[in-house]
């Protein structure tokens, strides 16, 4: 009895994973058509990216402030407070930029994607589209997917840039570290490929993950008010956990290369 219950639960989970993988491949297969109509993708970059800009900017600024303060606290013990610029830049570009942006993106843009697709489903808009011989995967899901994938690295770059400015504000005018040391240490210590490149790869992977999870939850949700609300919650939970887990995997891979 217990074995059959466990078996059933495992089978249902596997079916969900299979369904998700199938949808992912279907969206990828339709990407060519969606990217050719770039206006649709550009619209989504605007919706997802531009509207997340304020939350990303403000968060980046505060994270930069805190990084500089905490970095100074540790570094001054070793007499290398000038390296705070390098610490802020590396932390942001390699780690915090991509990760925090992805978490904020999941909360800001991911939830709105899930709710939008879920409500389109509940209002029979997706069925109406199918009956008009328009494939919702090509017309609705694929442009949103690529919109998210393109927006994420751009937002992460904004986050890191604003964070560095925040770090400078705390380190230079407030604490009084020499501006020349602050910038030159950063310039000398940050490698374009090893540091910035790895950050960009991370944010691309997170862009794919968060956007796809949001689309999947919206597309697969029960077309009822509680179904949409549960799907929205799942978007935040699943994509946040996926981002944190993937971050570990990616970081480990990048260290081993």
């Amino acid at each position: 009895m217990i074995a059959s219950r466990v078996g059933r639960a495992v089978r249902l989970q596997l079916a969900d994973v299979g369904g998700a993988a199938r949808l992912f491949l279907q969206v990828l297969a339709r990407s060519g058509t969606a990217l050719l109509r770039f206006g649709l993708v550009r619209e989504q970059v605007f919706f997802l990216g531009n509207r997340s800009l304020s939350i990303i900017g403000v968060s980046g600024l505060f994270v930069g402030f805190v990084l500089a303060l905490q970095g100074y606290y540790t570094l001054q013990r070793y007499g290398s407070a000038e390296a705070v610029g390098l610490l802020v830049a590396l932390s942001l570009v390699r780690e915090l930029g991509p990760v925090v942006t992805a978490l904020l993106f999941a909360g800001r843009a991911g939830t709105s994607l899930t709710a939008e697709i879920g409500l389109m489903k509940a209002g029979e808009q997706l069925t109406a589209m199918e009956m008009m011989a328009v494939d919702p995967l090509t017309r609705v899901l694929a442009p949103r997917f690529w919109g998210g994938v393109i927006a994420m690295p751009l937002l992460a770059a904004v986050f890191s840039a604003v964070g560095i400015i925040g770090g400078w504000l705390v380190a230079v005018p407030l604490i009084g570290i020499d501006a020349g040391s602050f910038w030159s240490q950063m310039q000398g210590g940050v490698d374009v490929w090893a540091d910035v490149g790895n950050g960009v790869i991370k944010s691309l992977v997170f862009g794919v993950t968060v956007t796809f999870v949001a689309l999947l939850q919206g597309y697969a949700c029960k077309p009822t008010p509680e179904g949409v609300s549960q799907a929205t919650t799942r978007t935040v939970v699943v994509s946040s956990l996926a981002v944190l887990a993937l971050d570990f995997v990616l970081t480990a891979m990048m260290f081993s290369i």
Partner: protein
Amino acid sequence: MAPSTSPLSPASPFLIELRDVSCGYGERVILEKVNLRIPRGKVLALIGTSGGGKTTVLRLLGRQIRPIQGQVLFDGQDLAPLNLDQLYAVRRRMGMLFQFGALFTDLSVFENVAFPLREHTKLPEAMIRDLVLMKLNAVGLRGARDLMPSEVSGGMARRVALARAIALDPDLVLYDEPFAGLDPISLGVAARLIRDLNDALGLTSVIVSHDLHETFGIADEVAMIANGRVVAQGTPDELRHSEDPLVKQFVGAHADGPVRFHQPAVPVAQDFGVAA
């Protein structure tokens, strides 16, 4: 060889044929060996009790679902084996009006009607504008072109959806409960529109409705579906005067008859603890 699909040389007087169609969800059988033929150019109404299978017929016609058994033919072509491209080619010849319109809420009234034209044609913008305004004019909403779906009433939304459904000049229009929740004026307008558009554009229309008065007023033929079968089919007058007890109960709106008022239950005496 595939049958001719040109409306000018019809292969059969029937645009739609259901041949021994059985259909269900899981183990629940909704339709059992249903046979139904819908003549070209006519308005057919599907009536019947709730859960009796009317909407399932509509879903079969658009191949939103496939039958377990039997064939659904659209213009002589079996819908079941079509791949997605072939299915979409057939669906371009169909329009569907959903119960609450299913308008795209992020697009204006104009853009909703323009949607199928933009997706399926490469017409210049000026021609799309003219076509959209013509369709909107046909449903009396040329003046509402700039409104958003949230700014129009339920009746207007359904008229916009009707304009969108006929945007590509389909051969068949499917109506899912087009009269549900409309005030008497909107209801009369919707019914008149369905009939007039059917005749003016040479469509074939299938209406699923509970509103017998409006439906009987505009339909050429009525099919009653109950318990997964077509129990009666004929002109509205034939159904009005039918002696079949189920049809009589439905058309006369009697509370009790072959469709029981009471759900099957233990005897009343047993439930209330009194002697029978």
